[in-house]
């Protein structure tokens, strides 16, 4: 998966009858990254930074305003919907909220069988029920649960169903959009372990979107940090956590609480001032300069480009 110069602008309209476009929300603004086969790229950032929109644009659930998305060698951003359809089974998504992403009126079995029917994959002798049973046991749910409805399941079990559904079409690439943040702490680790096991077993490639930096460090091989529609830093997992170079990454890492009062008592914490500006009117120059503890005049003037300051470690900051 390779993404180049991805942009997604949403129009802001005004007027009741003749809707005029009065501005643009630059949800994703010139984002580039690549994910190698079998790798997990973590995409972190706070709400509104564009990480979910990036994930949806990669899957063509939203058509990007500009840029290309190369999947297994083809630019899928240029394909028509009809051309995309056979490719869609190769790219799946696991959503954040297992309560709203499952249909309350369908049984677990029906929901998992549905994508198999839609893509016409249930004709070659394998009965759909067998496939459902197989998928349920793969995600650690007793196949007898296929007759149950979502409300009879706990949050963790529902998320397992969401994962089974994503796996039903044997994808090679899965976008995991905050897959554990709606779950109880004791269940989160179960789901993370499951995602890792499935990756090894089925050679999956993940784009893992999350705001929890400790979870992202655990699961990702490389990590990209987003702020206000842009990637501000991208590096290998260990490199990013040991040598964060962008002031935003440094602040994010320092804000993550550690469950140990002795560590917390001596840990430096960078508390950022202010809040994230509106993506409809981002600051000129570096988008982070309004909150940056080390900003200088030059930061307001020109937008910093990603530079490779250490091997495979890219940072968009002139002060780094």
């Amino acid at each position, binding site marked *: 998966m390779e993404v180049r110069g991805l942009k997604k602008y949403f129009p802001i309209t005004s007027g009741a009858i003749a809707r005029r476009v009065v501005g643009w929300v630059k949800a994703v603004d010139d984002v580039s990254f690549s994910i190698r086969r079998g790798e997990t790229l973590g995409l972190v950032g706070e709400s509104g930074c564009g990480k979910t929109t990036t994930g949806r644009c990669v899957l063509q659930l939203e058509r990007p305003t500009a840029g290309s998305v190369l999947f297994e060698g083809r630019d899928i951003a240029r394909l028509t919907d009809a051309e995309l359809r056979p490719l869609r089974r190769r790219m799946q998504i696991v959503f954040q909220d297992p309560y709203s992403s499952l249909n309350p009126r369908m049984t677990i079995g029906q929901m998992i069988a549905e994508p198999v029917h839609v893509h016409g994959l249930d004709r070659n002798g394998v009965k759909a029920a067998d496939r459902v049973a197989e998928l349920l046991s793969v995600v650690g749910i007793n196949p007898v649960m296929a007759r149950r409805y979502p409300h009879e399941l706990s949050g963790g079990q529902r998320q397992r169903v969401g994962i089974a559904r994503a796996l039903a079409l044997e994808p090679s690439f899965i976008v995991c959009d905050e897959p554990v943040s709606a779950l*109880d*702490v004791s269940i*989160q680790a*179960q789901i*993370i372990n499951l995602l890792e096991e499935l990756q090894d077993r089925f050679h999956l490639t993940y784009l893992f979107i999350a705001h929890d930096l400790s979870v992202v*460090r655990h699961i990702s091989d490389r990590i990209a940090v987003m702020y206000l529609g842009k990637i501000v830093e991208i590096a290998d*997992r260990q490199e990013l956590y040991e040598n964060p170079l962008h002031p935003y990454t440094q602040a994010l*890492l320092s*804000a993550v609480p550690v469950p*140990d009062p002795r560590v917390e008592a001596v840990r430096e914490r960078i508390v950022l001032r202010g809040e994230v500006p509106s993506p409809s009117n981002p600051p000129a120059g570096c988008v982070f300069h309004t909150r940056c503890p080390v900003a200088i005049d030059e930061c307001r003037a020109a937008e910093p480009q990603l530079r490779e300051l250490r091997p495979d470690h890219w940072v968009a900051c002139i002060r780094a």
Partner: protein
Amino acid sequence: MAELLAVRGLKTYIGTSMGIVKAVDGISFDVQEGETVALVGESGCGKTMTALSIMGLIPRPQAEIAGGEICFQGRDLLKLDAEAMRRIRGAEIAMVFQEPMTSLNPVLTIERQLTETLEAHGTISKQAARERALELLRLVGIPDPVERLRQYPHQFSGGMRQRVMIAIALSCRPRLILADEPTTALDVTIQAQLLELMRGLSRQFGVALVIITHNLGVVARYADRVNVMYAGKIIEGGAAADIYRDPRHPYTIGLLHSVPRLDQPRKARLEPIDGQPPDLWNLPLGCSFRPRCKFALEKCREFPPLRRIEGTHEAACWVAEDLPR
């Protein structure tokens, strides 16, 4: 330090179509003047119901207090009539809720929401109330407070709304603030801002804080004491330093081990707690954690009481002393 709040054997039961749920099942804890106490547990463990019971805000008639005492400054709040409780609620004990958007009134200005509490709890002139409102917004670090007083909640960001909630909670100079997941709905950098703010204000005014959260990490920096809840009961309690250094209940140990930690080397695999969260309609006999517990014995079919491990450190586990350290 003097005792401010003492909860003794509190039981809050909820009637549902599927039977009675013992949301809070005989818990006891106390809060000293000016200290910060954490109630930690996952969804359904009864932590929010505990706070609502203290505030006298449980959803009646479905929910009812089935037993126990809630002594605040020596008076049992459960024995007070509605009017006496109204005078305490908001004035002496205030609450900050998780969702600042749903707990602020969308059609009232921020000024009105701040002055409402002040006027409800004393004779204060319009002018004095307005000045106090301004002072409160400054206190919680909201820029342009004069301008902001005239605005409505939708014009505030999530973090700013939560600051307003804190301002409202502080408005009548309470002795105790109950904060129910005060930062859960917010981004990490904003969480850090708000927790620092709450700690600063609680020290400045000597207000005691009860922080209710599912995240053991959040409170490590702030809590003096921690109570861990599971299925309506406190299963471990004590000084924060002891609980984090040497947890003695398998559930607390499991919670601390299951989260990836940024200050430690990355583990190859996380160690989750097995099984599903407890089904409150159908709790097992004896220890509620037994079906998920790696150390469960035959004896665990018998209910383990909360007992002293060392000093003030307590745990409700038959084998607490024998668990791996």
